[in-house]
Structures are given as C-alpha cells and as structure tokens.
C-alpha cells in the first residue's frame, strides 16, 4: 500500500497540470478559429463572421472552458488526443517526438551518472584534494557556460572547422546506426557537461557526509582499506540521496533539451512545443505538455518507490 500512494499522487499531479495548461492555452491571444478561417477578403465582414462562428463551433471553442476541458479529458483517456491541422493524429505526432527527447535524456543520465560518480569517488579519497578542487571548479565552469553557446561552439569546432561530425540532423538508429551515433554525439556532450557537474557536486557532498558518519568510523577502525570503505560502505549510502537529484535532473533534461534540439535539429518534443504555441495548435500543445509532464512525474514516482523500497527507515514511517 505504501508503494501505491505515489502512483495516486502521480495521477493527481497530471490532472492538475492538464487543467493549468488548458486554462493558460485558452488565454492565448489570437482566436484559433479566426486563424483557421484566414483573411477571406472575398467575403464581407458579415459573411466572414459567420464562417468564423461555424469554425469555432466545429472546434468546440464556443463551449465554456471547464466543459471543453472535460470533453478533452474524456477523449484523451480513450487515446484520442485530437487531430493536427495537417490531418495527422496528435497522439502519434507527440509520441514520435518524445522518443528522441527521451533518448537524449536517458543517454545523458547514462553517461553523466557514472562519470560523476567516478570523479566524486576519486575526489573524496585521501590525498586527492587538488584533484577535488580542480574537478570542482572545472565542473562549476562547465555549468555556467550557457548550453546554447556550448552547442554552437561544438558545431563550429567539430562540424565546420574539423569536419568530423555532421552539423545537424537526425537519422533513425534502426536504419543507420552509425549515422545516428554520429549525430547524437554533440547534443549529448552539450547536455552531459552541465548534468555531470550537478551530479558530481552532489555526490561528492553526499560522500563527504557519509564518510563523516559514525558508521564509517567504525568500519575504518575495523581495519578496512580505504577503497573498501569507500566503495562498500560510503558509496551505497550516498547513492540514496542521489536518487532525488536524479528525478529533478531528469525533469530539467526533458524541459531543457529544447535549446539543444533547436541547435542540432534533433526532432524532439521541445521543437514541437514551440511550434504548437506559435501556430496556436491547441491539441498538440496540450499533448506535448502532458507528455513531458507525464515522463517527469512517472520518473520521480518510480524514484520515490525505489527510495521507499530501499530505505528501511522510510518504509516503516
């Protein structure tokens, strides 16, 4: 039962987000119906107004907002997220786009976590103080450089000047795996640098705290080697707090890949989001937001469940 409550709140959070997004989206200026109807100079303003009213009715925009939300929710739960202007299904479009974003997010975590862990572990060892300071400052610098600047610099360096990697684009992994890898490298590095920095600082701090506990002092007194102390005792205890950071960073990555996607033409959900806001494509907009939010909330819920399973203290609570 304890493990179930996080999932319940997941639904609650998603519902809340859906409502808020809906509310804000209806506040967007520029009537969607007006835009769809277009200029229509050939009509008198009266005729045009009729057309706009008809379009508004067709789109369901003449209903009060809460009712519109209920209708949307009803359809969404059944899997119908609406139809895009061009005729394609919104659900399909968003699904197509969220996968590349998720790929970048997961790959980033897969690279950053071990990297940060290695650096942090080395930094807390006795006699590695210089390494720790250098690593610490380097990671801070890696964090404060704006991601979009970093990305552009990589493009200039690796694509234009050196010609080693393509400047932008996306190839499906299934069809051209090598090309896919060549194109994921730069966006990945751009995301990995600040993410590793964050994880590194946090892990180092956790490790320091863990190393200072009574538990560790006992282990050392027992005569365990430094390495054993570190890897067998301190590290697992430091891991648990890292889980919380993981959740937040994942969320940041999902929302934050927008810039990286834009620089490298990576077909992720961020680009679709911006597009749908500018085109006032209501259905796509909501679907994008929900997809991103759902991914984040699911991830943090899973983390919370893992936390509860692993940490005996919390399980009892």
């Amino acid at each position, binding site marked *: 039962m304890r493990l179930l409550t996080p999932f319940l709140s997941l639904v609650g959070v998603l519902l809340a*987000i859906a409502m808020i997004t809906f509310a804000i989206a209806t506040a967007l200026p520029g009537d969607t119906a007006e835009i769809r109807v277009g200029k229509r100079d050939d009509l008198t303003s009266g005729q045009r107004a009729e057309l706009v009213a008809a379009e508004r009715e067709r789109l369901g925009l003449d209903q009060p907002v809460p009712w519109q939300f209920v209708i949307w929710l009803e359809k969404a739960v059944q899997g119908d997220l609406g139809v895009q202007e061009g005729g394609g299904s919104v659900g399909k479009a968003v699904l197509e786009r969220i996968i590349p974003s998720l790929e970048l997010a997961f790959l980033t975590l897969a690279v950053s976590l071990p990297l940060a862990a290695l650096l942090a572990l080395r930094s807390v060892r006795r006699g590695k103080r210089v390494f720790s300071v250098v690593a610490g400052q380097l990671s801070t610098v890696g964090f404060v450089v704006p991601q979009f600047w970093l990305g552009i610099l990589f493009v200039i360096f690796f694509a234009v000047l050196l010609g080693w990697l393509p400047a932008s684009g996306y190839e499906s992994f299934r069809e051209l795996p090598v090309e896919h890898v060549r194109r994921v490298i730069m966006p990945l590095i751009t995301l990995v640098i600040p993410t590793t920095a964050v994880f590194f600082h946090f892990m180092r701090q*956790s490790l320091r705290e863990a190393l200072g506990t009574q538990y560790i002092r006992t282990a050392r007194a027992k005569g365990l080697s430094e390495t054993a102390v570190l890897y067998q005792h301190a590290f697992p205890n430091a891991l648990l707090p890292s889980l919380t950071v993981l959740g937040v960073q994942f969320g940041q990555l999902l929302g934050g890949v*927008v810039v990286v996607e834009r620089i490298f033409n990576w077909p992720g959900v961020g680009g679709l989001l911006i597009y749908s806001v500018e085109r006032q494509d209501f259905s796509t907009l909501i679907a994008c937001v929900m997809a991103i939010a759902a991914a984040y909330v699911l991830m*943090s819920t899973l983390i919370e469940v893992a936390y509860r399973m692993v940490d005996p203290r919390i399980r009892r609570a």
Partner: protein
Amino acid sequence: MSWLRHNIRLQIGLLLLAPFAIAALIPGVIAPYSPTDLVDVPFAAPSGDYWLGTDELGRDVLSRLVYAARTDLKISLGATLIAAVIGVSIGLLTGYRGGAASAVALRVTDVMLAFPSILLALFLVAVIGPSDTIVMLALMILYIPGFLRFARGMAMSLRERAFVEASVISGAGSRYVIWRHLLPNAIGPLLVGISLTAAYTLLAAATLSYLGLGTPPPAPSWGGMLQASFNYVFQDWRYGIWPGLCIVTVALGYMLVSEGIEVAVQRSGSAGAAVGSVEPTGLSGSTATGGQAT
C-alpha cells in the same frame, strides 16, 4: 567583516560581481555611448573610440554590454529575490504549521516542478508579449517551488528543536517563532540558495533571450547579443566572446559567493548549518532550488 576573511571563495566571487554591479547601477556613467545609437560602421575593429568594436548595426559593443548588465542583473536578482520571499514565507509557514496546508504545498510544488519550464515562458510571452517583466515572472514561478521546499523542510526539522519548543511553551505565536527562531537559522542556507538561484536565473534568462523570448530589440541583453553573434560568427568571431564572457563571469561570481556563504555558515555553526539533506551545497543545491532550467 570576519565572514569575509579567509574566505577566498567569497572574496573572488564578490570581486567578479563587483564591476557588473557597478555597471548595472550607473550604466550612464560607465558606458561611453548610448546602447542604441549607431556610432560607426558595423563590425568596426576595437579601437580607442570603441574598446570592443561595434556590433552588426554599428553600435558600440561595450556600451551595450554595460546596459545589458542592468537588464540581466535586474532580471536574475529580481526573479530570485521575489521567488525567495514568496517561497520562503509560504514554506516556513506551512512547514511549521504542518497539516493539510503543508501537504497541499508539497503537492503544488510537485506540479510546478513538473511543468515544462520553457512552456511557461512561451505562454507568457505569447499572451503578453516579450519583455523583461515577463521573463522575470516566468523565472520567478520556476524557482518558487525550490525555495518553498527548502523552507518547508527547514521549518519541519527546526520545529522539533528544543529552543523552539521552549518558545512555544512560553506562549509564542507562530509568527513570532518563525520570525525569531526559524528565519535567523535559515538565513545562512537561504543566502546560499539565493545566490545559487541567481546563477540559474541568469543562465535561464540568457537561454530565453536566445530563443527570442526575452527583451525586445533594440534593448540589449547578454543572451540576445550572444544569439545575434551566432549569425555573424564566421565574419567576426570575436563579437560573441564578450557577452558570453559576461554571462559566465557573473554566473561564476554568484556560484562562488554561494559557496563562500556556505563555508561561512558552516564555520559559524548556526542551527541552520546542521539541518540535514535539504541543504544546498554548491551545485547540489539543485535539489532544493530546481537546477538549471532550460
């Protein structure tokens, strides 16, 4: 100034921030020209008249950087401070009181954290139009949850402490307790969180400018200047270095200040320093304050 002595991080951090603070306060005095006047040909080389040369329209780069300092610092500090005030007050209150309000506050922060950050900015810009205030608003909302959670956690753990209980027993109301006991102990870590968040908001504001959601032209901002420089990088590559360097330096300054304050707090051994895992420590403050958005 004992907190400054032997605190090299704080010293360097403040040193890095100082020139920009001055530039932000009295841009008219420091900048040789107006940021919008066309003073010479585009991309004029650095010279005695234009220390950093001119930009793509022929405006003095240095003057634009100086005025941009005002914009960027205003946005980053403004958003941070307001978010801190709101987040901390609600957090302390609900954390101390506990109960339903506290649980609700936590859920609300969940929702706010799950909301794609960029979307909020996009929405606001779409509804109201790009401006400094909009960026500040969007960023503010982004970082309130972090402060709220931090303050809430701090209140929740501090309220069990002896000195708080003693105060309550002797009849102190919650406002008194919060003001006199919780807040002073929270100040240390709070300042750490504030300067850290200021770094985040600066970077986030630059990113929003890059996406075209920031200050409308021709008002300068570092992010906007950096973005513009990309269009000319193969013509004049030096142009983009200056705004980029400004962003990096100020963000670095904020971070060093935050680390410095943290060291000072730990040295002082206040009750706030001993509070557990919600304590921000350098970049690991991202747990409390939300990380680098976008």
